[in-house]
């Protein structure tokens, strides 16, 4: 154990550089997939046929492609189409797109969980669609959507390790490089696992706190 701690002290600084990139890619992926997911969910429930069809098809197609392949596509194929991105940007874009269908489903199921009578009551006092969403549906849907949103966030964090396959020196890649140069597999991969866990725990805690504080005003 002492041995592990002294070795950990040695390797942590290098791994922390990876942590920085992992957080960057994860945050970028969150934000992008959340925005895309919201847009897709709104399109889906808009009641406007073409929009809802586009959203439905997008979800089916993108969800059916492995995130890894999406990343490869953006990093290796887009340049041929004239769009060259840095590895980090490609990773964020790829993760954001790959997770947008999951986010869309999280938001959609939240919205659809709200009883139809709610929007009817809101419409019947003269609200328009936007106001019905903003003032009546979303404040309730958010409570339903939070737990699955939290799990999706953690999946994004874990899958940010896919960025390593397109040369982003994130935590997983730093770990791999360090392990192959030192042969300290056990120490290093244990550290890598612990660091990922250390990043996901605050997410879990944050979600728990959000859920609770949203449930408060009763």
């Amino acid at each position, binding site marked *: 154990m002492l041995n592990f701690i002294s070795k950990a002290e040695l390797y942590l600084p290098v791994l922390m550089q990876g942590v920085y990139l992992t957080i960057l890619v994860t945050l970028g992926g969150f934000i992008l997939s959340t925005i895309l997911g919201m847009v897709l969910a709104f399109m889906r429930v808009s009641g406007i046929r073409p929009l809802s069809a586009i959203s439905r098809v997008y979800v089916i197609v993108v969800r059916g492609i492995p995130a890894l392949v999406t990343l490869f596509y953006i990093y290796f194929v887009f340049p041929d189409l004239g769009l060259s991105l840095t590895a980090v940007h490609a990773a964020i874009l790829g993760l954001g797109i790959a997770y947008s269908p999951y986010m869309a489903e999280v938001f959609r199921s939240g919205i659809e969980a709200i009883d139809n009578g*709610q929007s009817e*009551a809101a419409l*019947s*006092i003269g609200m328009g669609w936007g*106001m019905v969403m903003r003032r*009546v549906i979303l404040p309730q849907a958010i409570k339903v959507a939070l737990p699955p949103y939290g799990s999706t966030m953690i999946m994004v964090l874990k899958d940010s390790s896919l960025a390593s396959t397109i040369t982003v020196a994130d935590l997983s890649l730093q770990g791999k490089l360090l392990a192959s140069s030192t042969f300290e597999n056990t120490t290093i991969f244990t550290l890598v696992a612990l660091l990922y866990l250390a990043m996901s725990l605050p997410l879990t805690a944050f979600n728990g706190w959000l859920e609770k504080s949203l449930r408060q005003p*009763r």
Partner: protein
Amino acid sequence: MTLISLSNVRKSYGKHEVIRDVSTSVDKGEVLCLIGPSGSGKSTLLRCINGLEDYQGGEILVHGARVDRKDRNGIRDIRTRVSMVFQRFNLFPHRTALENVAEGPIYVKGEPRAEALERSTELLARVGLADKIDAHPGQLSGGQQQRVAIARALGMKPDAILFDEPTSALDPELVGEVLGVMRSLADEGMTMVVVTHEMGFARDVADRVIFLDGGVLLEDGPPEEVLVRPQNPRTQDFLRRILPS
């Protein structure tokens, strides 16, 4: 003065015709009760009047303006004039009783907040809930929730209120308090269209009763005629089943 008029209204879900050629009208200050067996199209007809459903034929006019769901501004305007009270209350569970009532005045009508809250407080007092203004719907009984819903409808200063079986979801002992509020509204001259199975209410309060069966309007007249001396055998049959003899 005619407030709501329906002429030759038809509505179908796919091939299934649920409203067949219904014509009637509601005058200002009139209380119209709509009765009929389950599935006869009572809710559908009511929901067509404020555009929660569209209809395929005929015409519904409110204040002379055609109810048309495609005319977004027009339909919103009509809905602010014709409020609706639902069987299952449909209060906003994330807002207090007061906020439920003030929601429309503040956010739809743009009334100054302080004024809207004061008026909403008065409306809640009027339905006997002065002490419940800060309660959330989940903390109220069904009867109390339905009274909040009536206050919410009144908050829009409507020309008419549509009620869809407002007491059907209530425990029997809570029906009276809601009917009481509705009676007092009728006494004050509110125009009301009420879908109900409460024949006592229809007999005492309604100015007119219409009987709908299979989407067809079979009776339209004062309660003493429709309820006591119905012409149509189907109406006689329905009343025999629903009225304890």
